[in-house]
C-alpha cells in the first residue's frame, strides 16, 4: 500500500464525493417529485395521463440506467436534443428513480385498508380530505422502508456516470488506475468513500424504519 499515493488522491476522491452527492441528491429529489406526481395521477385515475404514466413506469423500471443514459446523452442529440452531462445524470437518475418511487408509494397506498377511507367518508370528509389527512400519512409511513431502499439504490446507481463523463467516485478510481496503475490504493479509497457516502444513509434508514414501525403499533 502506497500511502503517499493515497494522500495525493484524497482531494480527487473528495471532489468526486461532492459531485456524486450533489447530482445524486438532485436526482433523488427529482425522482421523489416525479414519483409523487405519477402516484397521484394513478390514484385518481386521471384519463390518458394514467396510461402514459403506467407506460413510463414500466419502461424505466425494466431498463438499466446505463442504457437510459446512453440513450439520453448520445442518441437524443442526434435528433436535436442536447443536454449537459450534469443535467443528464440528474434527469436520468430522476426518471429511473421516479418509476421506482411511484411503485413504492403505490404499494404504500395499497397497504392502507379500505375501511380507513370509508370511515373518513362516514365522518363527512371529502375525498380530498380523506386522502390528505387519513390515507396519505399512513401510506407515507408504510412507504418509508421502500423509500430508504430507493435512496440507497439510486446513490449506488451513480456509479455508471462515467458514461456521460461525470467524474463520480467510480470514474475517479477508474481514471486514476488508468493513469497511474495504483490499483489496490485506488480501489481501497473507492470502497472507503462509498462507505462514507452510504453507511450513514443506511444506518439512519434502519433507525427511522424502526421508529416508524413502533409508531405504527401505537402506544
Amino acid at each position, binding site marked *: 500500500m502506497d500511502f503517499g499515493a493515497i494522500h495525493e488522491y484524497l482531494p480527487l476522491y473528495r471532489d468526486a464525493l461532492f459531485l456524486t452527492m450533489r447530482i445524486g441528491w438532485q436526482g433523488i429529489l427529482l425522482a421523489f417529485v416525479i414519483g409523487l406526481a405519477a402516484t397521484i395521477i394513478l390514484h385518481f385515475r386521471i384519463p390518458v395521463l394514467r396510461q402514459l404514466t403506467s407506460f413510463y413506469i414500466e419502461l424505466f423500471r425494466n431498463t438499466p440506467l446505463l442504457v437510459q443514459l446512453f440513450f439520453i446523452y448520445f442518441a437524443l442529440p442526434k435528433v436535436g436534443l442536447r443536454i449537459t452531462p450534469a443535467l443528464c445524470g440528474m434527469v436520468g437518475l430522476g426518471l429511473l428513480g421516479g418509476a421506482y418511487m411511484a411503485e413504492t408509494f403505490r404499494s404504500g397506498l395499497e397497504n392502507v385498508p379500505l375501511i380507513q377511507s370509508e370511515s373518513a367518508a362516514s365522518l363527512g370528509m371529502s375525498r380530498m380530505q380523506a386522502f390528505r389527512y387519513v390515507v396519505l400519512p399512513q401510506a407515507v409511513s408504510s412507504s418509508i422502508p421502500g423509500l430508504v431502499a430507493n435512496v440507497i439504490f439510486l446513490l449506488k446507481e451513480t456509479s455508471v456516470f462515467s458514461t456521460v463523463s461525470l467524474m463520480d467516485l467510480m470514474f475517479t478510481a477508474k481514471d486514476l488506475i488508468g493513469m497511474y496503475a495504483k*490499483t489496490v490504493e485506488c480501489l481501497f479509497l473507492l470502497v472507503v468513500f462509498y462507505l462514507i457516502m452510504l453507511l450513514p444513509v443506511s444506518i439512519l434508514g434502519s433507525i427511522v424504519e424502526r421508529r416508524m414501525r413502533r409508531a405504527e403499533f401505537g402506544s
Partner: protein
Amino acid sequence: MKKQTKAALFGLTLALTSALSMTAFAGDSDKVYRTVDEIKESGTINIGVFSDKSPFGYVDENGDYQGYDVYLGNQIGKDLGVDINYVSTEAANRVEYLKTGKVDIILANFTVTPERAEEVDFALPYMNVALGVVSPDDHVITSLDQIGKDDQVIVISGTTAETYLVKNNPEIKLQKYDAYAEAKTAFENGSGVAWANDNTEVIAFANENPGYTVGIPSLGSNDTIAPAVSKGNDSLLNWLNDEIVSLGKDNFFHKDYEETLLDTYGKDYEDTLVIEGGQPAEASTEAEAAAAETEAATEAE
C-alpha cells in the same frame, strides 16, 4: 437489537481493516504471465485490442476484428501457430490487463511512455505517434491558448493525451470518457470544443468526417506505439522483438498500412506513421527524414 448492531458495526470495521492489511502485505504475487511455450501449449493467445477504434482496432459488420493493430495480431497468431482470442479493451484498462495476466499481449495503439514502461514491458515499436487536437471547422483551435476558461476538451480516460494535459495544462477543463465510441459520439454531438488524442486518431477522424479540422497536428513529444507484454515476460518479449525485425525484412508494416490505413490517410502519411522492423528514425531528424522520404517517393513516381 442494539447489541446486534454494535456487533455488526464491529464486524464491518474488522472486515475492512483485514481487507486493508491483506492488501498492504500482498507483494507482487507470483508470475501472472505465460511464456511463449505455455502459450503454444495452450493453443490460444489472448491479445488485447480496441474494438471501437477504427481504423486501428474495430469490429466490422460481420463481427470480425479489423485494423492496423489487428493485422499485426493476426500475423503474430499465424507465426506462433496458435488461435487468437481478441479481448476488447478500453484505454484505461490496458496496463491492468497485462498486470493481471488477462491478456498475453496488448496491441491496442499503446504509446510507449516512461510511466507505462515501469508497469509493463514494451517490444520494438511499429508506429509513430504524437498528440493532436481536432475541432469543428467553424471554430478551429490551433493553439491551446484558444481554449477558454469554461470550454471543455474531450479526452479518453487512460490515454497519453489525458496524462499530458493533466500534467502540462492543468488549467484546461477535461471531459473524460471511458471508450472511443463514447468520446467520438460526444464530440460529434458538440459536447466539447475540441478532442485531444493521438494525432493519428484525430487526423483519421478529420479525414473521415467532414466539418472537422486538426488545428494542432502535433503536441508534446514524438512517441512510438509498440506491443506490450507483462513485466518480466522476457520469453514473449524476445519472441516479439525477433518477429518485428523479421517482419520488417518483408516490409510487413507498409503492407499493413496499405491494407488498413490507406483509405483513411492516403499515401502521404505512410512513411511518417509506419516504423518498419522496429527501427524508428532519430527523433530529432524524424520529420526531416520523413519529408525527404516522401519527396524521394514522389520523385520515384
